[in-house]
């Protein structure tokens, strides 16, 4: 179904349930859907599993969600950063679970979820701690680890522009995980800088077609 345009981020995140797996776009701050995360904090869903490349910086965005105690588990490639003190403290005190996933596996496992792939044999991590206990197979003389899809109940992503049907374009390296997460979640919610009339975006340049997008909200400081 076509995307629904929301007036406010609070409307966009309505209905996210306790216990949901939430895919959160962004790589550092680039592409991070900050207004949606803030709205999710207000919305109150708890016991969440968050899948994102990082585990929050400073006191805002993802770190603020963590600080509120809403997140049971983080699945990410790189939790540790210079200012990831909120996560660090929760982790060290045993208040949050962590699954570290190689960044390429994080992306490919979400792609698999979006593409209907049941599992795939992956060359990354063979012989490492992160493949311990996982099935392996030698194919054509090379060893691979079997990896399973990561599917979200919800994806919160940031994009540059949307048209009124939900087609999305991104800008520079803020594209990162957005297009992949948009394929991998049941409900996909996009925060964009600008909503344009349908027909304005060049169809050759659409990166996330509207079929993947459920709700769109324009950033409040741009409306």
């Amino acid at each position, binding site marked *: 179904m076509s995307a629904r345009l929301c007036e406010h981020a609070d409307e966009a995140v309505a209905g996210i349930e306790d216990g949901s797996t939430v895919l959160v776009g962004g790589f550092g701050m680039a592409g991070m859907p900050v207004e949606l995360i803030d709205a999710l904090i207000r919305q109150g869903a708890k016991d969440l599993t968050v899948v994102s490349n990082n585990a929050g910086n400073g006191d805002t965005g993802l770190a603020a969600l963590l600080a509120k105690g809403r997140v049971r588990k983080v699945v990410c490639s790189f939790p540790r950063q210079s200012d990831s003190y909120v996560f660090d403290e929760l982790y060290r005190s045993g208040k949050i679970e962590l699954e570290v996933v190689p960044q390429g596996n994080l992306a490919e496992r979400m792609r698999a979820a979006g593409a209907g792939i049941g599992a795939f044999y992956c060359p990354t991590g063979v012989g490492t701690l992160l493949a311990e206990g996982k099935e392996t197979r030698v194919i054509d003389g090379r060893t691979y680890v079997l990896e399973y899809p990561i599917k979200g109940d919800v994806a919160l992503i940031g994009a540059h522009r949307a048209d009124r049907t939900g087609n999305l374009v991104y800008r520079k390296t803020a594209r990162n995980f957005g297009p992949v997460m948009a394929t991998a979640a049941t409900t996909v919610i996009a925060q964009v800088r600008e909503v344009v009339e349908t027909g304005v975006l060049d169809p050759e340049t659409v990166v996330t*077609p509207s079929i993947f997008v459920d709700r769109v909200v324009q950033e409040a400081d741009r409306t």
Partner: protein
Amino acid sequence: MNRNSQLTCGQGPLDKHAIAALIARDIPRGAYVNLGIGQPTLVADHLPADSGVVLHTENGMLNMGPAAEEGQVDPDLTNAGKVPVTELPGAAYFHHADSFAMMRGGHLDICVLGAFQVSAAGDLANWHTGAPDAIPAVGGAMDLAIGAKKVFVMMTLFAKDGTPKLVPECGYPLTGLACVDRVYTDLAVFDVTAQGLTVRETFGTTVEELAGRLDLPLRRPATA
């Protein structure tokens, strides 16, 4: 052409345009839909202009428009049947792996496919007669059959030689197992359910008559 065929419940058998109109009526507003090669493409002619239905073509496009008319033909813009088509506002292009990921990942709401046979369990046979001299060609049929949220079949209920195409088990090689949700035919519309085949509507015939001609138990809808 008979693009204006109206649904004539109770009368029948329906022609292909009337079947297409029936299917179009059942497609929700704003749905993302793939119409298979051949008769299913007729469904597009019966979608209301304001339906908001978005057509997908597996060769890499959403918001495909109608067939190109003379003067509009662009060799770079065709549908899955290689027929020149047009582009609607809100279109997007993508490559084949992305297009089939979209199909196989369960993102299309509905696909409409033709069939040689459909079984009572919803198995679909529509790609290969199995004849020894036939050259097999599957295209995207197997991907659509297992990928779309709902698979609608559009076919005549009986082959030209009078044999039923809705059968206890398919004799032709399968396209997909237990993948069909609903079968639209010239004589009736059937839902494939866990309890078996349910007749939704008949056209110029009755459930009893159909039960006599098909080698299958048929149920009436729960509300009937």
